[in-house]
C-alpha cells in the first residue's frame, strides 16, 4: 500500500516537472511533437528507474559503510548516470536497432536531465539509503518505485504538453511570446490543473 501511495503520489501530486521543477530543459525542448515527446518519455522512464536503483545500491552498500556519502555523493551519482546512459545507448544500439533509431537522439540528452540526478538526490534526501530508517529491501523498493513513478509522471507531463502545443500551432498570440514564453504559460495552467490532485493522498 505504501508503495502504491508513493508511486501515484510522485506521478500526480509531486509530479517531477509540474510540482518539483525537475527536467525542464527536455520538457520544453522536445515537446513540440507528440511522437518525439513519447520517445523522450520512454527513454527517461528507462534511465530514471535504472539510475535510481544503481545510485541507491551504491549509496547504501558502498558509500555509507565507507563514510563517504557526504563528500562523494554528487560526483558518484553524476558519473554513474553518465556511464549508465552511455551503456544503455550501446546495449540498445547492438540489441535492437529499431528502438535505437527511436530513442537514440534523446539518450545523450538525458545525462544532463536534472530529473535523473534529482531522483537519485531525492532518494538520498528521503533517507531511503539510511539503514536506521529503512530496511535493505524496503529502501530499495522505495527507490525503485520513486524512480519509475517519477519517469511515468515526466512522460505524462510531456505527452499532455506536446498535445497542447500541437493544437496551439495556429493559435493567435503576441509574437513576443513565441517559443519559450508561451510554453511556460501553458505549463503554468497545467501545473494549476495538477494542483487539484494535491488532496488525493
Amino acid at each position, binding site marked *: 500500500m505504501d508503495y502504491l501511495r508513493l508511486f501515484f503520489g510522485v506521478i500526480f501530486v509531486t509530479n517531477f516537472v*509540474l*510540482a*518539483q*521543477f*525537475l*527536467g*525542464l*530543459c*527536455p520538457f*520544453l*525542448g*522536445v515537446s513540440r511533437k507528440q511522437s518525439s515527446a513519447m520517445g523522450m518519455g520512454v527513454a527517461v522512464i528507462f534511465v530514471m528507474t535504472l539510475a535510481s536503483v544503481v545510485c541507491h545500491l551504491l549509496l547504501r552498500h558502498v558509500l555509507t559503510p565507507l563514510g563517504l556519502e*557526504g*563528500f*562523494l*555523493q*554528487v*560526483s558518484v*551519482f*553524476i*558519473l554513474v548516470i*553518465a556511464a549508465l546512459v552511455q551503456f544503455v545507448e550501446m546495449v540498445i544500439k547492438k540489441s535492437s536497432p529499431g528502438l535505437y533509431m527511436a530513442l537514440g537522439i534523446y539518450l545523450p*540528452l538525458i*545525462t*544532463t*536531465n*536534472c530529473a535523473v*540526478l*534529482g531522483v537519485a*538526490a*531525492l532518494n538520498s*534526501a528521503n533517507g531511503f539509503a539510511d539503514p536506521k530508517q529503512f530496511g535493505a529491501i524496503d529502501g530499495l523498493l522505495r527507490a525503485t518505485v520513486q524512480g519509475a513513478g517519477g519517469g511515468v509522471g515526466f512522460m505524462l507531463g510531456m505527452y499532455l504538453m506536446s498535445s497542447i502545443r500541437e493544437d496551439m500551432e495556429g493559435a493567435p498570440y*503576441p*509574437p*513576443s*511570446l*513565441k*517559443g*519559450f*514564453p*508561451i*510554453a*511556460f*504559460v501553458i*505549463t*503554468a*495552467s497545467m*501545473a*494549476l490543473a*495538477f*494542483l487539484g490532485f494535491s488532496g488525493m493522498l
Partner: protein
Amino acid sequence: MKLWGEFLKGIVKENPIFGLVLGMCPALAVTNSVTNAVGMGAAVIFVLTCSNIIIAAFRKFFPAEIRIPCYIIVVSTFVTIVQKVMQAYTPDLDEALGIFIPLIVVNCIILGRAEAFAGKSPVMASAADGLGMGIGYSLGLVWVSTYREIFGSWRLFGKPITAGGFDPAVILIMAPGAFLVLGLSIGFFAWLGSRRKERAARASAELALAEEPAFGPVLVEHFKKEKAAAGESPAAGETKG
C-alpha cells in the same frame, strides 16, 4: 577592454535566463523568496567562475572524446564545496534550497559555458565570462523572485511590507505562479529587445536615406529581403539540453 566585453555580455545581451533560456529548473524552484534567489545566485557565481577557470586552464589536457565527463567532475567538485560550506554556515539556506544545490552539477548554464566558451578560451577571458554569466543569472533569479515574493506573500526578504489587510496572490508562491512569472518575464524582455532592434533599424535607414539619396531604393530592397528572412526563420529557442 575585451575582458570587459566578455563580462558584460552575460549580464545584458546573452542573459542566461532571459536571453539564452538556460538553467530553468532552479530559476523556477528557488525563486519563491528573494533570499533563496540570492543564495542560489551566489552559489552559481562561485561554481561557474571557478569551473570556467579550471576548465580553461586544463583545456589542452582534456581528451576531446571524454571532455564532458571531465567537465562534470570539475563542476561536481566545486558543487560539493558549496554544499559543505552552506551546510556549515547557512543551514537555513541549505534546508530551503534542498536538492537544488547538488543539482547545480547538471545546470545547463554551467556545462553550457564550459562547452561553448571555457573549453576553447584563455583563462582570464573564461573567468570574466563565468563571472558575467553568473551575475546575469543571479539578476534574473532576483527579478523573478522579487515579483513572486512581493505579490505572493506581501513580503520582501521575509519581512512584511504591508500593514495587513490585503490578501496576497498565494498562487504566485506555488508552482503555477513560477511558470507564469518566468514565462511572461522572458516574453517581456523579448518584446523589449524586438522594439529596440526595430527602432535601431528605422533610425539607420533614415540616416542612410538622408545622407545617400541614391541608395534609397537599394536599401528598401535590402530591408524587404531582411524582413522576409526574419519571417521565415524558426521561432527563437531551440532545445539547449
